[in-house]
């Protein structure tokens, strides 16, 4: 494939970032917005061309009937050793092509939406610059040809996420949220980095193709080395997964994502719902053949995913801030994808159920990106209208904001898994894969799906029905630039489920047809409907039932509402233990012990000279005394020696 288009896909957002970042303060808002949108639009078109050519072009079907993996270009960027070379390249395979579509679509929609949402904000140009930076980084991440390139862009998305969360830098909450996000993900990245180091030490390569095309070679290259009881490959993979856990907000590294909602809502839609947070899933998917080799690593993925999914769903039921509800729903849904990836492997190099889980995970990633972005943008429209994040300030909005209402409803239906919306199809595949792997996980995930339907419709009814508070200004639908993305994404959410995903994205690039497993599908739809009905019963109009329930289970409500006190636990660890328990004593140690020792050398010298200084008293008679005593001593010594 020619490399012009791929280069442009990366270069345009980068140029836009530099242009808007350096010259932005001299531009008008309109020009900056226009430039940003134009840049992203071009990228969108180029990405679509690239991805569609890849998916439909016959030139990418190899001799064995499989879709080829293509390294479009691969430039050496930094050569550590002969083998360990960081290259910057463009790698095209089904998942990266799919991610190109997802990222550019959502990003473009967000660019467009922000034109209305961010209108008149201070730092509008900066906002668009950061969006471009993020798009660049995210695109670079998904097309990475080697794990170190991914790490580079991984860090860059982290930084742009930091900048965007802290966009309202005058607010303390935004600043601390951005700091938290960066540090938590940085901590996870440390794991990622160590994982890379361990893996590359044994395999002597960073290259994805080399690793994934022959995973058994990777296993062999470690030579069965173990560290503290586990094989080094397990260590490496788990550590790399830690990086994914950080970015994808898996427990226990999830705490940054709810706080990240301090950023502007479109940013939440782009970064913290659709693209960046699925980087962890993407990472595992990218390394999937290697993960397949180590059953214990995939086991950990499944367990972490399952626990996170349930936890986040529970917490989402007890939140007040609608963006937080969506954030926890995102965590839960990403956990779905993780579980699905985990259950795609049997361990010891075998895929389970023809790798259904892998395909389902990617499918869910795709559909989730669309409907979750839709929900976030809808939430943005709501917040734009009522100037509050809390559902307590909303209610009965269906009358005032019909477009928002309908599109939001579509999003809710999609996430709840009601046919024919896209979420149904992808979630159904995931559940099918789970049941096939272990019935326990299947039931567990179905339960989470039911909870999902419940909390989404709880929010839906509380926002659009319930009873109407007193509005200072009559809320109304958002302007056109904000509505177009809503409508577009709603349309995609309606139809995306019918894409024959199995034809495009599978673990070994072997196309196959998706079957809907009827028992699973029917049971999950029924469960979802029951959950929706319950939500409708409780929240359609003001009634004492929710309060009663809260009173009936106060402990549970408290724990869910306070997110099971994870933040407090982290606060305790970071402030009490690390800051007060390590940093302060160390600083004290440095100033008083180490520096004290150095100073004491000076003090001792000083004291010593002070002590002998009076000998030089200026009293000449004292000198005579010293002389006399010295002479006598000398005489004595001589006498003793001679005699």
């Amino acid at each position, binding site marked *: 494939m020619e490399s012009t288009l791929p280069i442009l896909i990366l270069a345009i957002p980068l140029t836009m970032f530099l242009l808007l970042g350096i010259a932005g303060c001299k531009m008008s808002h309109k020009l900056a917005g226009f430039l940003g949108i134009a840049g992203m639009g071009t990228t969108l078109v180029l990405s679509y061309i690239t991805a569609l050519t890849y998916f439909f072009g016959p030139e990418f079907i190899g001799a064995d009937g499989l879709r080829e993996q293509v390294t479009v270009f691969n430039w050496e960027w930094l050569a550590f050793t002969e083998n360990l070379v960081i290259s910057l390249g463009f790698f095209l395979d089904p998942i990266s092509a799919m991610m190109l579509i997802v990222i550019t679509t959502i990003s473009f929609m967000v660019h467009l939406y922000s034109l209305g949402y961010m209108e008149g904000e201070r730092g509008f140009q900066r906002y668009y610059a950061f969006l471009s930076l993020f798009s660049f980084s995210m695109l670079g991440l998904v097309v990475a040809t080697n794990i170190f390139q991914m790490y580079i862009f991984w860090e860059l998305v982290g930084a742009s996420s930091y900048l965007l969360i802290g966009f309202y830098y005058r607010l303390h909450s935004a600043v601390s949220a951005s700091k938290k996000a960066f540090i938590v993900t940085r901590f996870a990245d440390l794991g990622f980095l160590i994982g890379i180091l361990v893996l590359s030490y044994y395999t002597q390569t960073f290259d994805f193709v080399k690793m994934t095309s022959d995973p058994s070679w990777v296993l062999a290259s470690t030579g069965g080395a173990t560290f503290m009881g586990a094989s080094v490959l397990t260590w490496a993979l788990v550590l790399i997964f830690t990086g994914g856990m950080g970015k994808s907000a898996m427990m226990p590294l999830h705490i940054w994502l709810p706080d990240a909602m301090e950023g502007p809502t479109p940013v939440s839609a782009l970064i913290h719902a659709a693209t960046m947070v699925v980087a962890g899933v993407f990472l595992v998917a990218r390394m999937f053949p290697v993960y397949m080799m180590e059953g214990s690593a995939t086991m950990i993925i499944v367990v972490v995913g399952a626990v996170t999914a349930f936890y986040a769903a529970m917490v989402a039921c007890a939140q007040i801030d609608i963006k937080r509800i969506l954030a926890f729903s995102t965590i839960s849904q990403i956990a779905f994808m993780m579980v699905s990836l985990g259950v795609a492997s049997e361990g010891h190099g075998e895929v389970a159920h023809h790798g259904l889980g892998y395909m389902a995970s990617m499918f869910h990633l795709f559909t989730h990106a669309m409907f979750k972005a839709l929900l976030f943008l809808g939430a943005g429209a709501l917040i734009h209208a009522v100037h509050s994040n809390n559902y307590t300030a909303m209610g009965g909005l269906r009358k005032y904001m019909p477009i928002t209402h309908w599109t939001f409803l579509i999003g809710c239906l999609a996430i709840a898994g009601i046919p024919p919306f896209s979420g149904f199809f992808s979630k159904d595949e995931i559940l099918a894969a789970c049941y096939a792997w272990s019935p326990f996980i299947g039931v567990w995930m179905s339960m989470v799906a039911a909870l999902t339907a419940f909390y989404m419709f709880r929010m839906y009814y509380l926002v659009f029905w319930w009873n109407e508070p007193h509005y200072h200004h009559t809320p109304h639908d958002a302007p056109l630039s904000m509505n177009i993305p809503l409508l577009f994404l709603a349309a995609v959410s309606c139809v995306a489920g019918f894409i024959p995903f199995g034809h495009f994205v599978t673990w070994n690039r072997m196309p196959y047809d998706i079957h809907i497993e009827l028992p699973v599908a029917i049971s999950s739809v029924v469960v979802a409907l029951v959950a929706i009905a319950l939500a409708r019963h409780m929240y359609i109009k003001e009634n004492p039932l929710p309060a009663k329930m809260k009173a009936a289970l106060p402990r549970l409500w408290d724990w869910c509402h306070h997110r099971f006190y994870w933040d407090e636990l982290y606060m305790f660890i970071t402030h009490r233990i690390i800051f007060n328990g390590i940093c302060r004593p160390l600083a004290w140690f440095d100033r008083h012990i180490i520096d004290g020792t150095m100073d004491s050398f000076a003090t001792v010298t000083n004291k010593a000279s002070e002590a002998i*200084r009076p000998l*030089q*008293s*200026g*009293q*000449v*008679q004292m000198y*005579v*005394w010293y002389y*006399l005593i010295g002479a006598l001593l000398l005489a004595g010594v001589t006498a003793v020696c001679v005699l």
Partner: protein
Amino acid sequence: MEFTAIYYLIPALIMFCCGVYGFITRKNMIAMLISLELMLNAVDINFVVFNRFLFPEAMEGMFFTLFAIAIAAAETALAIAIIINIFRSNKSVDVRTLNEMKF
């Protein structure tokens, strides 16, 4: 009875020790200077005695004493000038008051 060298040296030694005693104990600078002269003279006598008894045909000791006397004169004159100057500024010739230039 024969006057060997020791007959001259012992009085000189006693004189020297008196000088030492005086130099150590007296506070008056002129008194200290006097003690100093005593010591100097004791040493002079030693030079002369050793010259006379051990090398009667040489004159080194004698000349050394001669020059020592000349230098002692110069030194005393200067010392006394300094003492008088100190007396002018300090109104005292007590050596214990003279420690401003220490360290």
